[in-house]
């Protein structure tokens, strides 16, 4: 990509976040991104703008302001009712071309990982995927003779090779600097009730073209379970649990200790549990207070999604299972005997309190 001229780069100002909504309800990632954007904006001495796209979404500006947005840009159009790649790409790319942000953050969700690449290709800038850490700093990190060191660059850090390596990436010569950010990693600010901010209505116009697809049907997963990303205690099962029926003993443990059941990819692949309970690289990143890894071998892709848990307790019959390399407490043994007995003792302990 041709480098932008310096005077063009200087026209790009402010930290923007894509405030994802589904069914006119803001996703948690919207607030997480604002939380991070506040920190970056303080370093850059600039402001945070949340961009919300949808249909009938004017009410969403209020919570975005309460969670710390300095300004909200609303693109409210019937074409944006359900997520579709083309109108959403058109909307966000138009916002970028009109308002020229220096940083554009998008959640690395099933929507953001489609929207981000399309928008970056359309506006012509780089995009770093699935970031787990964002900082403002110099590029190159250390001065190199004969090369100008640029300051106040967005340094985007992400895992690669299934979590085995970690890379820090910059987009020094093009704007905006775009990143998708893994949900569950950045911290939300505490909301300030009643806070307000500037709200800008913007509509670039939507005309159907050959890139529009048709949504024939929308099928929502019926789930009354807690989002595993919000759970304080997770009781997570792997292939070693043996059968979908045997997850009962994990559910009992979760019930006794006030936790939520989650699982590994193998369990989802076997059809034992739905995808929204999956922890790991291709599932969700979780950081609960306690993570029970039960019958989970601990493939690196799984570990990438749970290693930030405060306390990891692993139960596995295979003494050499890699999960023991990340567990704070590892118990080698038969989960079918240990888990039910543990549930009973926890119930007793809670009852005697």
């Amino acid at each position, binding site marked *: *990509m041709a480098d932008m001229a310096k005077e063009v780069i200087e026209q790009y100002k402010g930290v923007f976040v894509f405030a994802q909504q*589904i069914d006119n309800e803001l996703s948690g990632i919207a607030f997480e991104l604002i939380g991070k954007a506040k920190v970056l904006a303080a370093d850059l001495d600039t402001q945070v703008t949340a961009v919300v796209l949808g249909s009938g979404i004017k009410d969403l500006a209020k919570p975005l302001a309460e969670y710390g947005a300095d300004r909200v840009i609303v693109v409210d159009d019937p074409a944006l009712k*359900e997520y579709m*790649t083309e109108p959403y*790409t058109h909307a966000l790319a138009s916002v970028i071309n009109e308002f020229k942000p220096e940083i554009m953050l998008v959640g690395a*969700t*099933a929507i953001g*990982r*489609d929207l*981000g*690449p*399309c928008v970056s*290709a359309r506006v012509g800038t*780089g*995009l770093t*995927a699935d970031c787990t850490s964002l900082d403002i700093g110099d*590029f190159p990190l250390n001065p190199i003779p004969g090369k100008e060191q640029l300051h106040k660059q967005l*340094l985007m850090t992400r*895992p*690669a*090779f*299934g*979590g*085995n*390596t*970690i*890379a*820090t*990436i910059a987009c020094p*010569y*093009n704007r905006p600097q775009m990143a998708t950010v893994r949900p569950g990693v950045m911290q939300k600010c505490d909301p300030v009730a009643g806070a307000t901010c500037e709200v800008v209505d913007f509509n670039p116009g939507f005309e159907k073209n*050959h*890139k529009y*697809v048709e*949504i*024939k*049907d*929308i*099928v929502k*997963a019926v*789930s009354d379970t807690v989002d595993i990303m919000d759970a304080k205690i997770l009781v997570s099962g792997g292939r070693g649990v043996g059968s979908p029926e045997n997850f009962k003993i994990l559910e009992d443990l979760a019930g006794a*200790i006030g936790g939520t059941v989650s699982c590994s990819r193998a369990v989802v*692949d076997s059809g034992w549990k739905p995808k*929204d309970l999956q922890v790991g690289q291709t599932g969700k990143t979780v950081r609960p207070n306690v993570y029970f890894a039960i019958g989970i071998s601990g*493939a690196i892709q799984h570990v990438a999604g749970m290693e930030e848990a405060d306390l990891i*307790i692993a139960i596995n019959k295979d*003494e050499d299972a890699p999960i023991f390399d*990340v567990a*704070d*407490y*590892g*118990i*080698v*043994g038969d989960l079918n005997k*240990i888990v039910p*007995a*543990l549930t009973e*003792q*926890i119930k007793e302990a*809670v009852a005697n309190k």
Partner: protein
Amino acid sequence: MKVVVCIKQVPDTKGGVKFNPDGTLDRGAMLAIMNPDDKAGLEAALRLKDQYGAEVTVLTMGLPKAEDVLREAMAMGADKAVLVTDRVLGGADTWATSTTLSGALRNMDYDLIITGRQAIDGDTAQVGPQIAEHLGIPVISYAEELKVDGNKVIVKRQYEDRYHMIEAKMPCLITALAELNDPRYMTPGGIFDAYDAEITVWGRNDLKDIDDSNLGLNGSPTKIAKASDKVRKGAGEKVVPDSPDEGVSYIMDKLLTKHII
């Protein structure tokens, strides 16, 4: 009907991750495989071949040794294979990779382009949608199911808590999830034929409507500032209790001292 499947040769990070004594990733010791999501995409294309007689071409960009995955694809049943390889293409980020593949695709006839959702080395999921954007065709990411009806595709598009049934006119691009299907094995006859099959090799000059400023390391807007092996926290305690009860007591002790219960 013509289907082009974009595939990538990747180190097998699943299970078989190997480290050098200094803790860095030992890529030489890891198997080079066809990326799993891409393989599902190839299988989907081969099913269209079985059903409708679609012609299936596999396309990859990489080092000359990436030819191995093209031959594997042909042994599974792909009809044609194109390898895009050139020194000037090295070090490409997703922008430069997608521009390069678009330059190759402009030379090819296609009704449907299938890519894997993401490769297990970079895990970005960006190249597929970016190719569609460069070519100006619709994209449907995260395909869990794929059907063809006349000049339309019907795709089950996965989200975290729902799916959309999406209909799009061809030409279009879909990105395939490994959940799409179970890829077939190579056949002995297929392996035999693939060994001798002709593979089209294209270099920089064969790419259509592409400016040099969009290729390789120099054409990549994202630059690596630092790369390192991930530092993991060390292992904690591991106990091998004599009885399940002893294991339970051990856990209870930890839960109580940490005030979790």
